């Protein structure tokens, strides 16, 4: 029977071509759309985790409330013991201390006086320890544009943009002017040994990357850091796991005596709780669901319409089949079975076409840097699609379902045909 129906579909293309093309177009668009949204979400999560939030972040309560400030006033004391404790209790995660700081980079002339200066967004990470996870997390090796990685405490990297803007030379010494955690002015002469470009506009505009030990000394942050970030070993964020970890840490911290200033108490927060990020991730989830719902709805209407047109065109054929004694139910089932075949074939072809386009977008991406000139959001300049297991089913299932739904609604007209009037209809 299936073979019989299949032959009918292949030989009578007017019966199958339009619904097939509709399903292919709809399914491929859904696959591309879904993969694109997943890719954007992934880029956003990756950039935010690497540069700001980690998969979990331990920070002073006051800093967590202020979100993105780079004030060294709020710091975690006894950082060595804190990081050691986290590594001991949660060895599967990579834990790394960081200091975020703001300041100015002042470049001297031959006489040692200010030649040019610019604001910098400083990030102090563990660059010098052997076995530090930071070079891998930040992908520093790949981000180097000129020069080399720092090998000594007073050596730093600056963003390639800043390097060009200040007219710096590799090996040149510039002075960092910042504020200690106690409010004094802090200055330090730092040697620029390399430039970096991370492909994240918000970072590449004016980043200064230094080893955490030198910045601790300069900002009077002896054994203190701004935050400790935790990363899952496979670099993939898992919200339930991160949330459970944060809840356990915060419960344990609550049972210990609180510091004199409650704003300095250490709290752990999963990546998803970052105020800016949570909204975007929620929006992404809604967008994905809306995309699929709209696809199923629109496709069902289009295919219903196609079914109705097919029924009109096949009005005579169905009438003859009923006249020779075929049951209405059987006719209806064959129409639905035909649509199922079209749906499966169209969904497979559409998924393959969608995957091909998604793969191209995953490999090449789309450069959105011109739109991010003044953006503060941590997102990659090149947005890419990302093929996930979901990409395989996200178009396929609705593709088949909408075809079935369309045929089921339009095919219901068969039951309204009156057998007694068939001969009269044929005479006409």
């Amino acid at each position, binding site marked *: 029977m299936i073979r019989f129906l299949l032959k009918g579909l292949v030989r009578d293309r007017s019966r199958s071509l339009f619904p097939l093309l509709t399903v292919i177009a709809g399914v491929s668009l859904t696959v591309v759309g879904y993969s694109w949204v997943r890719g954007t979400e992934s880029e956003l999560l990756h950039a935010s985790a690497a540069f700001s939030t980690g998969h979990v972040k331990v920070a002073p309560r006051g800093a967590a409330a202020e979100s993105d400030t780079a004030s060294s006033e709020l710091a975690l004391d006894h950082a060595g013991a804190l990081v050691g404790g986290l590594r001991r209790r949660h060895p599967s995660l990579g834990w790394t201390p960081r200091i975020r700081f703001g300041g*100015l980079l002042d470049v001297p002339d031959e006489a040692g*006086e200010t030649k040019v200066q610019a604001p910098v967004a400083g990030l102090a990470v563990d660059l010098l320890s052997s076995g530090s996870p930071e070079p891998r997390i930040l992908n520093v090796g790949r981000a180097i544009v000129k020069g080399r990685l720092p090998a000594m405490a007073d050596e730093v990297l600056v963003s390639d943009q800043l390097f060009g803007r200040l007219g710096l030379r590799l090996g040149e010494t510039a002075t960092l*002017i910042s504020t200690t955690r106690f*409010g004094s*002015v802090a200055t330090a002469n730092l040697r620029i040994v390399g430039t970096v470009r991370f492909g994240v506009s918000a970072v590449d505009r004016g980043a200064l990357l230094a080893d955490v030990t030198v910045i601790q000394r300069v900002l009077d942050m002896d054994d203190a850091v701004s935050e400790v970030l935790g990363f899952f070993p496979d670099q993939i964020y898992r919200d339930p796991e991160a949330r459970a970890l944060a809840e356990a840490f915060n419960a344990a911290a609550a049972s210990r005596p609180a510091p*004199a200033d409650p704003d300095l108490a250490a709290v752990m927060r999963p990546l998803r709780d970052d105020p800016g990020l949570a909204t975007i991730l929620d929006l992404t989830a809604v967008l994905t669901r809306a995309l699929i719902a709209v696809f199923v709805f629109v496709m069902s209407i289009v295919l219903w319409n196609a079914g109705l047109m097919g029924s009109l065109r096949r009005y005579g054929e169905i009438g003859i089949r009923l006249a020779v004694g075929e049951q209405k139910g059987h006719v209806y089932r064959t129409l639905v079975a035909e649509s199922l075949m079209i749906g499966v074939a169209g969904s497979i072809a559409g998924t393959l076409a969608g995957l091909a386009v998604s793969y191209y977008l995953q490999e090449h991406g789309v450069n959105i840097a011109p739109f991010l000139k003044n953006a503060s959001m941590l997102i990659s300049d090149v947005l890419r699609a990302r093929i996930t297991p979901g990409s395989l089913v996200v178009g396929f299932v609705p593709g088949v379902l909408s075809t079935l739904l369309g045929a089921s609604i339009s095919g219901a007209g068969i039951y309204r045909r009156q057998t007694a009037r068939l001969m009269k209809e044929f005479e006409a």
Partner: protein
Amino acid sequence: MRCPPWIVAFALPWLAGAQAPSGDAILARVDANIGSDNKVTLARMVVEGRGVTRTVESRSWVRGMSESFTEYLAPPRDRGTKMLKLGDQLWTYFPESDRTIRISGHMLRQSVMGSDLSYEDLMEDPRLTALYTARIAGEEAHRDRPCWVLELTARKPGIAYQSRRMWIDKARDVALREDRYAKGGKLLKTTDVLEIERIGTRWVAKTVVFKDVLKSGQGTRFELVSIEFDATIPEHVFSKAMLRK
């Protein structure tokens, strides 16, 4: 005897002026009280931070209205830092990095030694009449002293504070309280004089609390430990060479 009406008409504005001087006239008296002679001061700045209070001590040599040299004496972290102001130029020497940094552009908005004052505040012309026009907004008592309330509006754009509201002691010609506003009307800074003292013929604010409204913390208390008017200051003090000495 009845006074002729033309005499009343002529004298009334003069009589009214005698009772309520113009805002600009009051401001000129405030400027005159500050004076433009040479001064040597020893001052203390108490900065209330998050759980930490820092006391910054400095000695300043001031020549006229636009030249000054300041050396920071304490705390140890800031000792040896020096600041030279010559007209509209400002340099700071940091012994920690052995660098003389010219304060301009982005740095003007930065805090001076972690206080609630910015370098822009230091660079401002102390003669308020040169920067603002004033009108009397009312009369109020501040800390039991009768004051004129003046509303100051910048004479030209580009001044750090577009407008100010000042409470001027009627008898002493000294500002007891001040609110400074941005162009959009947002309150940026407040000052509150806690103590004034008569030194020679002038009234001098001895203790003032500066508060940057946009910053957390309790503000910065400025205490004038000593002041010497008409001081003799050697010429070489106001040179860049002094910064590294």
